[in-house]
């Protein structure tokens, strides 16, 4: 009885959320369209002009080419930062020795400007793909470490003791006991990470790559083509939105099944 009532409330909540999201998306376009019509300027093109350009770029294949290049870098840098950052964060959260050994490095990484890391990476390793991806990953890394370290500090000692009492192997301890406890922290790091990573990828591309959205933005900046700049930026926002809706959210709700059933 209680379960049915709860499910009903959740469904209604979902519907309300959908309407809210649609309304806020619509409001963005209305404000944009009105502003563009009033300004009537090359510097603020109308939404339909931008969509028109987007379609043209998709048909010509340019957009897809540059989008794929950027997306590839985002995925590579994001994956590297998440994996390495989670491992370091977990180690720092669990061991006081590791924590004090790496703490200065962490503070250094946290406070070094993204631009400095990118420039140094290009200067030291050359204008190549490895340097670009490393620079982005390095910018995201401290953020992941800090978040996962908090999670690792909050791990339940009782469950750890249970795992030791039953002599669980490291694989079970990691995947069955530790990672599910870190899951909210990993999700938080992934969320903030994805948006940060793609913004930095654009800077990396602008400074030292010959393809990708960032490279295109630089080109259109020099041509003063605001409509194309918006078209490229928007298309990538749409891709990131799809990743959020079709990949991140389903993974999260799957991981949270046990919570929904119990509350």
């Amino acid at each position: 009885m209680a379960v049915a009532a709860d499910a009903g409330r959740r469904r209604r909540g979902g519907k309300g959320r959908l309407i809210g999201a649609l309304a806020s998306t619509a409001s963005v376009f209305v404000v944009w369209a009105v502003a563009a019509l009033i300004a009537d300027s090359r510097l603020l093109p109308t939404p339909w002009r931008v969509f028109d350009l987007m379609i043209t770029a998709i048909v010509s294949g340019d957009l897809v080419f540059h989008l794929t290049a950027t997306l590839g870098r985002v995925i590579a840098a994001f994956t590297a930062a998440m994996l390495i950052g989670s491992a370091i964060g977990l180690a720092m959260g669990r061991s006081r020795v590791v924590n004090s050994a790496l703490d200065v490095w962490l503070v250094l990484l946290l406070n070094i400007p993204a631009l400095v890391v990118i420039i140094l990476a290009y200067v030291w390793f050359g204008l190549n793909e490895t340097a670009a991806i490393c620079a982005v990953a390095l910018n995201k890394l401290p953020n992941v470490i800090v978040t996962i370290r908090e999670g690792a500090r909050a791990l339940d000692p009782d469950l750890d003791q249970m795992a030791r009492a039953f002599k669980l192997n490291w694989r079970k301890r990691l995947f069955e006991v530790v990672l599910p406890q870190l899951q909210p922290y990993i999700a938080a790091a992934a969320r903030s990470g994805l948006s940060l990573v793609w913004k930095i990828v654009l800077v990396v591309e602008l400074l030292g790559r010959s393809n990708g959205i960032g490279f295109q933005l630089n080109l259109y900046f020099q041509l003063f083509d605001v409509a194309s700049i918006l078209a490229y930026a928007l298309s990538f926002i749409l891709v990131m939105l799809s990743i959020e809706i079709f990949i991140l959210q389903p993974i999260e709700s799957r991981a949270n099944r046990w919570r929904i059933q119990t509350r």
Partner: protein
Amino acid sequence: MRGLDLSIAAGSLTALIGPSGCGKTTTLRILGGLDHDYDGSVSVGPETRIGYVFQEPRLLPWRSVDQNVRLVLDDPDAVDLTAIYGRLGISDMGRRFPGELSLGLARRVSIARALAIRPEILLLDEPSASLDETTAQRMRALILDVWQADRPTTVLVTHNIREAIQLADRLVLLAPRPGRMIGDVAIDRPQDARDTAFIETLREDLIRRFPETIA
């Protein structure tokens, strides 16, 4: 904890009794290999299978009951658990999550988990704590049933003297500050033949002999 010298017969059911702070749980943790910070020696074979039932069930909230029990198995899919589930009365709970269970049920699941590895040694930490009397009594019957079926060497920690007399065939009495052993009482009468009168008589006798431990 000082000068504890205990050797436990295989297949026996020993109860460690004493007020809080006397080191019952610590003794259990040392036996279970969870605590290494002590001077002395424990001779439990390294390959001995030890089933540990903690006072709190300590189940993984994100895994179903069945997954929780199978977690501790080396080959999770090869073991038939129906007999264990049946004996503990949790046969239809397999797909539920621990958050949906009462404490009594969750503790039964944690006993099932300990039994799943077919333990040679079974360690029980206050198995009836925080349960209402009816549920606690059922829990005791279950423990007796489980022990009589496979005869694992069982060590039960409790502060409930009646429970200890009802279940154990040996009582080890501990006193606090410093934790030490003050009594070692064997109970010869079989568990099934221990009625309320027997339990009460023995309890009063123990209170007379060990007033500092049993109050």
